[in-house]
């Protein structure tokens, strides 16, 4: 049993890495690539919400910041893709820092409001900064990612690129949570007074986690821009932020695996009709028109009934068989 448990992450990694060998369905690979993009955002949100207990209603803005930064770098400036990718992460990190420094001094509900305000403001800016962002018409003609002359244009290549980055992010986040910073974050969530009395630099931890999660969102945005090739403001709304938050909340606290499962499941639901060929169109439509209801309802129910979310449920399931 112990070996299975130890091997499980490797097993998942192998299955994910082998994806393109298991199917030649280019659509499915594209959908799974989108799953990877959301997963990247959720790794950051799992740290921020699930470990450090901070609410953000503005993460879609960081995704947008990254997407536009990478688009501008590669299209307007003609810089290599990787430079735009790094610029996207840096810009999102900077945005996160500017927002985090003043607002994290405040109590939790103020942070949530500040991120909401920031998200709305960013949405406006994406529309109004037309010379940079292309305004409502969007920004088109963004090239595929390329590193050193290799262009990731095939769905399988994009899939590998995105999931490789997700893999790295998950690995780093796992290390982070297993060691002292993870304990400090959980301590902060468990009791802020207790954390302060234990010498935890609570503000420093909050700022770092916030910036880290904003950076991951920015990188996801850069990948989104070059995978889709087109960016418009309608993608980076507060609505999307709520969706991200729902994934993190449903995924549960104190775990990376739970939020990743939630992100995967909730992203796949959006493509239900295309993924399960037998499903009737009406069923798929009902599922899709009630998608947001499900998000909202899930947040309420999880908070009321199962505060530890999917990860908590899985933990409980797992412990049933234990002596």
């Amino acid at each position, binding site marked *: 049993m112990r070996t299975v448990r130890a091997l499980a992450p490797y097993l998942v990694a192998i299955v994910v890495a082998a994806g393109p060998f298991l199917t030649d369905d280019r659509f499915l690979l594209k959908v799974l690539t989108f799953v990877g993009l959301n997963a990247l955002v959720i790794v950051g949100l799992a740290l921020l919400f699930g470990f450090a207990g901070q609410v953000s209603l503005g993460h879609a803005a960081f995704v947008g910041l990254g997407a536009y930064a990478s688009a501008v770098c590669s299209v307007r400036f003609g810089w290599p893709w990787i430079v735009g990718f790094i610029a996207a992460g840096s810009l999102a990190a900077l945005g996160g820092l500017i927002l985090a420094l003043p607002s994290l001094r405040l109590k939790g509900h103020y942070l949530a409001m500040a991120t909401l305000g920031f998200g709305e403001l960013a949405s406006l800016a994406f529309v109004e900064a037309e010379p940079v962002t292309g305004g409502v018409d969007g920004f088109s003609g963004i090239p595929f990612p390329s590193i050193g002359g290799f262009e990731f244009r095939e769905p399988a290549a994009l899939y590998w690129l995105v999931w490789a980055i997700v893999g790295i992010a998950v690995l780093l986040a796992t290390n982070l949570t297993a*060691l*002292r910073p993870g304990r400090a974050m959980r301590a902060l969530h*468990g009791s802020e007074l207790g954390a302060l009395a234990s010498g*935890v630099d609570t503000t420093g931890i909050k700022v770092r986690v916030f910036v880290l999660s904003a950076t991951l969102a920015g990188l996801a945005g850069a990948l989104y821009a070059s995978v889709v090739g087109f960016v418009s403001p309608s993608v980076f709304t507060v609505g999307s932020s709520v969706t991200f938050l729902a994934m993190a909340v449903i995924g549960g*606290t104190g775990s990376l695996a739970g939020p990743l499962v939630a992100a995967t499941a909730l992203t796949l639901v959006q493509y239900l009709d295309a993924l399960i060929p037998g499903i009737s169109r009406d069923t798929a439509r009902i599922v899709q028109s009630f998608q947001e209801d499900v998000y909202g309802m899930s947040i309420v129910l999880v908070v009321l009934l199962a505060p530890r979310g999917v990860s908590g449920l899985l933990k409980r399931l797992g412990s049933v068989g234990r002596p």
Partner: protein
Amino acid sequence: MTMLKVRGVSRRFGGLTAVDDVSFDVHEGQIKALIGPNGAGKSTLFNCVTGFDTPHEGSVEFKGQQLVGRRPQVAVQMGLARTFQNTQLFDEMTAHENVMVGAAARHAAGFFAAALRLPTALAQEQEAAATASRLLRRTGIEEWADTFAADLPAGIRRLVEIARALATDPSMVLLDEPAAGLNATETAELVETLRRIRDDGVTVLVVEHDMGLVMEVSDEILVLDRGKKIAEGPPRMIQKDPLVIAAYLGEESDDG
């Protein structure tokens, strides 16, 4: 040597003066007790001393350095640790992990090192784990190490919190009612623990209601009533102090 030097500290809430011009010293190697009836301002004074609250007036010097206006974790890093009247443990972590949080108090945040599992991070981790185990043994609760804090009995929670405070490697600890909720045996063990802490070279300031414990363990006692210091001295002297007796009798008749 004077470890803690409090001078003229006052803290008001609206019209109410919770702590009124209090001054006292705590010397190195002492166990000093802070007592007083309910609402005397003991917890507020504690908060003002540890950086959780800011006094309106007065100064708090710890090992010669000014503490007023500093953030609580700075006080911890300077060697001043505390516990709470309502224990503030991290419920979703084990007792051992709780103490480990304290053990890492003086390390840098180390996000980068931890994410990359650099040797320094791993070494610190081992050191923290070892410190935590040692302190759980020292406080006599090593059998609870792997229990989640949420599942610990009240008495053990207090000890875990003390162990966590000690893990920060303090020169002085402030314990807020450590005996509350303990039975007689546990209280007796607590007396031993407090002495052991002092013998390890840690100065102790303790707020306590249990008079037996206070008289038995403390080298010096400070008495607060309605925010004011009314007496200070060795236990024998305090026991006979008419002001103290009056204050406590007053409280009892209030309760009745």
